[in-house]
């Protein structure tokens, strides 16, 4: 049997890619480790290596084909004595990668479909960004990924202020582990885009020191899981210096990077720190969902004279949203955004949590529930007035986040709402969070450990007594 060479998944979140180039032709002999093709994902150009030896029988997908789904057979590898004609696999039409994907049979495809990657990446959400009162009416909108929006925000602020610089692991020459700093080294040079060794505690402290001296560092953590190495400098040095110095000096610094679960990266790489940092006086904590908020709030964060925790999410990086085309688009820190006005129930979320809410909305509409969705955007200082005003209108509240349940952000919101709007509540507040377990690796358990759309729908119905 000829061996099918499949379109490989080359990162935890990859679903499809462009087969940009074949480096071998039909009839070429290959051995294990030979590079046979190049594929492009939204993050990088990758090489496909042969994992077996044999002769390339047929190339099933033409070079240049876009949107080739993971696990689509892209070529046949013939073993000793086999001929290409004997290969029964249908030749996929290169122009219709969907058809090619359909021809994928067997276990591999089922398994891929089962992975949370497929389940977790929501279809391009439609967000009415123009409805944000902080954006002038009639502003032109440009579809932009969260990744690009973050990069643009940093580039604009670096052009504007020579004291702004970026440092972190792989931010310069590698262009960012998740390609958020793409192009910055080329534009700003290695004085302002600084690759560090893998020494988080050290470079976080160096950043805080530089900020105390008046520079405006953007410190990228490859992920916030690694900022646990640095959390002492973030909290004891960055957050407290202004107070301890009687207002003489603070630390105008942004700590940013992906936060929370990605896909199947296990217990040590999947933690959500929103609740942790939200506890600390002296910090501001931002966790955007849309590309527009990512851009407008990152620019605000860089200009802010305080230490800021800016929590991004790997799964959101590749998602596209409208971003207003303005010369200088800066959003206010600490102001929630009404994502969808409604009258029956208030749903509060932020960051990746919003993806569950957005999906739940469709179902809730079917059930005739008119939900008001508030995207907090900033966790600290929190726009509690916006939440309370909404709850006074709807009388019901559900919060949604991925972090651990005990002492969650939702717990804090629920507590404040019962203090300040007790008489308005028609039902107990439900706080949806991740499960009270370290993140498991197994696909089925990971899915269970995270919140899901069904839970959101169920909770909303429960507080509406439906």
């Amino acid at each position, binding site marked *: 049997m000829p061996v099918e060479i499949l379109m490989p998944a080359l990162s935890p979140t990859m679903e499809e890619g462009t087969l940009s180039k074949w480096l071998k032709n039909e009839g070429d002999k290959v051995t294990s480790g030979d590079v046979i093709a190049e594929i492009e994902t939204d993050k*990088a150009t990758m090489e496909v290596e042969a*994992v077996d030896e044999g002769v390339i029988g047929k190339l099933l997908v033409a070079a240049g084909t876009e949107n080739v789904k993971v696990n689509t057979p892209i070529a046949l590898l013939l073993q000793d004595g086999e001929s290409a004609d004997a290969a029964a696999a249908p030749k996929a039409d290169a122009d219709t990668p969907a058809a090619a994907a359909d021809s994928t049979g067997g276990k591999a495809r089922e398994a891929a479909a089962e992975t949370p990657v497929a389940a977790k990446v929501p279809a391009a959400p439609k967000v009415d960004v123009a409805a944000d009162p902080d954006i002038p009416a009639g502003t032109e909108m440009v579809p932009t990924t969260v990744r690009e929006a973050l990069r643009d925000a940093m580039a604009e602020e670096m052009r504007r202020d020579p004291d702004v610089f970026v440092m972190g*692991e792989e931010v310069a020459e590698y262009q960012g582990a998740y390609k958020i700093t793409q192009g910055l080294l080329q534009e700003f040079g290695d004085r302002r885009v600084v690759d560090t060794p893998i020494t988080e505690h050290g470079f976080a402290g160096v950043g805080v020191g530089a900020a105390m001296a008046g520079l405006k560092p953007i410190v990228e953590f490859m992920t916030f899981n690694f900022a646990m190495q640095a959390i002492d400098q973030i909290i004891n040095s960055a957050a407290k210096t202004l107070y301890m110095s009687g207002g003489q000096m603070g630390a105008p610094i942004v700590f940013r990077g992906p936060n929370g679960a990605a896909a199947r*990266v296990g217990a040590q790489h999947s933690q959500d720190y929103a609740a942790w940092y939200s506890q600390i006086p002296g910090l501001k904590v931002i966790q955007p969902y849309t590309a527009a908020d990512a851009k407008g709030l990152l620019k605000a964060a860089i200009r802010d004279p305080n230490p800021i925790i800016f929590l991004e999410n790997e799964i959101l990086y590749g998602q596209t949203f409208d971003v207003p085309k303005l010369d200088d688009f800066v959003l206010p820190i600490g102001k929630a955004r009404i994502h969808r006005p409604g009258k029956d129930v208030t749903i509060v979320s932020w960051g990746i949590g919003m993806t569950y809410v957005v999906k739940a909305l469709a179902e809730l509409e079917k059930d005739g529930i008119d939900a008001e969705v508030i995207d907090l955007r900033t966790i600290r200082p929190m726009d509690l007035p916006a939440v309370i005003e909404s709850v006074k209108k709807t009388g019901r509240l559900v919060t949604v986040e991925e972090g651990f349940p005990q002492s969650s952000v939702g717990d804090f919101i629920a507590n404040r709402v019962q203090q300040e709007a007790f008489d308005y509540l028609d039902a107990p507040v439900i706080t949806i969070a991740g*499960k009270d377990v370290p993140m*498991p690796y197994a*696909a089925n*358990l990971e899915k269970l*450990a995270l919140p899901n759309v069904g839970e959101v729908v169920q909770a909303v119905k429960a507080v509406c007594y439906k």
Partner: protein
Amino acid sequence: MASRNTASVSSRKTGSKSIDEFAPGAIVEFDRDQELKAYREMLLIRRFEEKAGQLYGMGFIGGFCHLYIGQEAVVVGMQLALKEGDQVITGYRDHGHMLACGMSARGVMAELTGRRGGLSKGKGGSMHMFSKEKNFYGGHGIVGAQVSLGTGLAFANAYRQNDNVSLAYFGDGAANQGQVYESFNMAALWKLPVIYIIENNRYAMGTSVARASAGVDFSQRGTAIGIPGLQVDGMDVRAVKAAADAAVAHCRDGKGPIILEMQTYRYRGHSMSDPAKYRSKDEVQKMRSEHDPIEQVKARLLEKGWASEDELKAIDKDVRDIVADSADFAQADPEPDVSELYTDILL
């Protein structure tokens, strides 16, 4: 790095007075059995990792997957010097260490696919696997963390006054983390029996050693506090074994910690999603064709007439069968029962 068949252990004076005692000659000459054992074990790691890469591409393995291809001689050579009760701990590039410690290919592969037959019941994944039975303490995803933990394993040996040693493996990138030096100091202060094995594969993700480290001789990282160090050709399993013998003797004699800098190379990207654009194809090709640890042993076996091509092919087939069996098992084994979500959190 020494070319094929002419490996050497170069040692140098460090802060320790006794370094000469364990600065042996270039290599340990292997007998036929040792060569065959090294060949087989390195090949098992190589084929296992190739298969893991393949399963990753097919979506059976998720998350991060860091392959050990190219570095096989390090762990196989070190393991040859150990005795019952010695402990091993490493980072996330750990599949090779597990196989070398005797953990089953099925158990490792099923953990990679997140199935119930995996060594952590599918709950740990590629980066987080453990075996109490084999004295393998993980499998750690946070760069540098295993260095302090490995020092703690040595602390326990010293506390119990046994003569076991612990092996703490870490990368050239990890070697810059602060806790590494905090650990070095305690280990030297308390004369803990720990071997720090720095697997210098020249890159930490996309950063070459020279771009991240002010001093690139990692064997000297403990000099100021009297920890001796050896620089070793980590592509030659005999050189690794020679250094391992010396280091183990040093630790068992109660002389405290020692650093072994293994000069090695990873052929693949950092993880499956690394396009590895920071180095040239020629550089990789040169290492593969001139320094491959498995090819070195194979050449010696054939040259000395210790094995025929056919005998080596039979070993290949045997190894392939083990790997294929592990892959079949890892795909067919069911996912963990959903009740496992809430187990193993507290006792």
